[in-house]
């Protein structure tokens, strides 16, 4: 022990940082801020360290070349001992990182910590969120598989919509005319050099400001922030009921960071690494690309936006959202901090959380996409075929062969793009069915040119059998009159 102490003294005599470390560690924080609610920032930092370490580990093997990247990931997964585990840690680490950064942001927002004098801390935090998302997207590209390839295509298609300079932005993003070697190389440079450099800088500034300005005090309803008096009040608060950060508060940060890191380790062990999915060969078109978890909500939004709204929403939406976040501390830099007195803030968070969760949930089921192999892979359940006429069964065949099943479900199987057809005969009469099939409309293609009259007749006959037992199919009330003779008798039983 004495040796360690003397080495420490020798080092500090030359480094001269012991005093400032001690001062930082023992700075007073408001006792109530030493709370389990104040652990997310340090947990994000801990995950960031994990990402740096595992990222460097992966760089020992990974080859950032479009021709080799995918097979180098296979090597990592299968031929390098525990390579799969390092990949899994890095992948799960990124998911946890995005989640913790978002939770941290939500907590800071609800606790009013962005108000005077911590406006700049919040603004740097917004930049930290953006670079974290940048890391997540560029990392997904480095897992150079089918999803990464087509995800880049989506990124290029969105960028190309920027007025005037769109095509140039695409070329700059891709490093050339197509997604190829140059694309991967520049995303490697972004993911490994540029964005981490920004991230480390922003983290340093962010932390420095937390230390200089002091951690946000626990918000109390009625304790209003005023620029004229706040600093004095905060000083008094820390003097009267402050505790030293070490050991008063840090043990909670340490416990929570350990818990998060352990959770990542467990998830990585049980669920393994993400992909890679199929090789990045654009001639393999039997693929349904999906983004990673944290961008699923965007994937869902993109399918629900009407065509006319798409370009404005894609280009203006993010700008408005980021501007709103950046301007927040200037628009609400004073006033109540407690979420108990800020109902709109609480509603905003709830709305954002519900929207994100809903869109993510929808994107996991992609009800807007045709099920590409439903027509050949999912048979019509037998109850829809029993006791049917030859014509109706012929119609069922048309239903499969013409890929109707890709977009329409029967007995909850098949596509969810269009309405389920289990009881379509109750909703639409024969004439309406024929019209819908031939002319389409309401987001359904017109099948008039693709169906022979006999096929249409058979298909509609089959569709007319689709009604719950005991509930009769829809019937045009004027039909019997139109088909009857002048005396009012039915013209014939079966016209």
């Amino acid at each position: 022990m004495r040796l360690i102490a003397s080495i420490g003294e020798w080092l500090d005599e030359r480094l001269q940082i012991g005093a400032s470390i001690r001062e930082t560690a023992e700075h007073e924080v408001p006792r109530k801020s030493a709370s389990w609610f104040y652990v997310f920032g340090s947990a994000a930092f801990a995950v960031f360290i994990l990402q740096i370490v595992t990222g460097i580990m992966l760089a020992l093997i990974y080859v950032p070349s479009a021709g080799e990247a995918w097979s180098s990931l296979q090597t990592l997964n299968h031929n390098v001992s525990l390579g799969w585990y390092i990949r899994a840690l890095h992948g799960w680490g990124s998911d946890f990182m995005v989640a913790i950064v978002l939770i941290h942001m939500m907590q800071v927002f609800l606790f009013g910590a962005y108000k005077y004098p911590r406006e700049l801390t919040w603004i740097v935090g917004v930049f930290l969120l953006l670079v974290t998302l940048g890391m997540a997207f560029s990392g997904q590209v480095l897992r150079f598989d089918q999803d990464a390839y087509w995800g880049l295509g989506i990124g290029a298609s969105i960028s190309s919509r920027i007025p005037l300079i769109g095509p140039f932005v695409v070329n700059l993003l891709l490093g050339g005319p197509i997604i190829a070697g140059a694309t991967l190389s520049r995303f490697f440079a972004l993911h490994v050099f540029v964005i981490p450099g920004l991230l480390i800088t922003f983290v340093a500034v962010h932390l420095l400001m937390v230390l200089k300005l002091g951690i946000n005090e626990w918000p109390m309803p009625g304790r209003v922030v005023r620029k004229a008096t706040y600093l004095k009040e905060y000083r008094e608060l820390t003097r009267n009921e402050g505790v030293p950060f070490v050991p008063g508060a840090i043990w909670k940060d340490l416990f929570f960071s350990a818990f998060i890191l352990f959770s990542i380790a467990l998830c990585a062990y049980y669920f393994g690494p993400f992909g890679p999915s199929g090789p990045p060969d654009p001639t393999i078109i039997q693929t349904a690309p999906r983004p990673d978890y944290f961008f699923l909500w965007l994937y869902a939004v993109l399918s629900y936006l009407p065509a006319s709204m798409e370009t404005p929403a894609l280009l203006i939406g993010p700008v408005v959202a980021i501007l709103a976040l950046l301007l927040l501390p200037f628009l609400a830099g004073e006033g109540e901090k407690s979420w108990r007195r800020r109902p709109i803030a609480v509603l905003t968070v709830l709305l954002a959380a519900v929207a994100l969760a809903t869109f993510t949930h929808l994107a996991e089921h992609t009800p807007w996409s045709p099920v590409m192999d439903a027509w050949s892979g999912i048979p019509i359940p037998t109850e829809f075929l029993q006791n049917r006429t030859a014509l109706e069964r012929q119609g069922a065949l048309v239903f499969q062969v013409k890929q109707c099943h890709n977009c329409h479900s029967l007995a909850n199987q098949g596509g969810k793009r269009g309405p389920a057809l289990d009881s379509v005969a109750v909703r639409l009469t024969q004439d309406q069915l024929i019209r819908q099939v031939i002319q389409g409309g309401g987001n359904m293609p017109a099948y008039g040119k693709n169906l022979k009259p006999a096929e249409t007749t058979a298909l509609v006959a089959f569709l007319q059998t689709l009604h719950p037992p005991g509930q009769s199919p829809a019937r045009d009330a004027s039909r019997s009159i139109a088909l009857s003779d002048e005396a009012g008798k039915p013209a014939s039983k079966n016209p």
Partner: protein
Amino acid sequence: MTLPASLSRRAFFTKLGIFLNGLVGVILAVPIVRYLLSPVARARRQGYESWVPLGNLEQFPSGETRLATYRNPVVNPWDGDTADIACWVRNVDGTTFQVFAINCAHLGCPVRWFAQSSLFMCPCHGGVYYQDGSRASGPPERGLFQYHYKIDGGKLLIQAGEMPTPGHATNIVRGIQPCA
């Protein structure tokens, strides 16, 4: 009071030193920016597109739509499979063709052809197109992108080389006449 004089001389040299570094910085910035902008340099952009063969005409029977692939004309040795691009070739009537980009006009995912219902469907957000490439349903704002094509020596050639995107579809013309 001699000190301020010498200080101001040093202050002047400091300012001059900052100015010299700024000047060198600007001089260095020119090649750096040009290097960064090389993918959009005028000379390179013009060379992105050229005529590439898709194969003999016999590979594309009349009235049918077939998948074709080509090697992108601008290519690096380390591009691997990514420089192999697919497209859909529709032989309309034996003499007229339509060559569609594989990329959905919505966000670029690969569309698949369903011959039975004569539709292209996209697996990402559910864009659907008719056999002539026009929009049938879903989020796309327009029909499929089409390549210029020509027939030369019994081969079908298309003008390709750049990924078509909604903002850049200059090579797209509807109802184009064959060149040869």
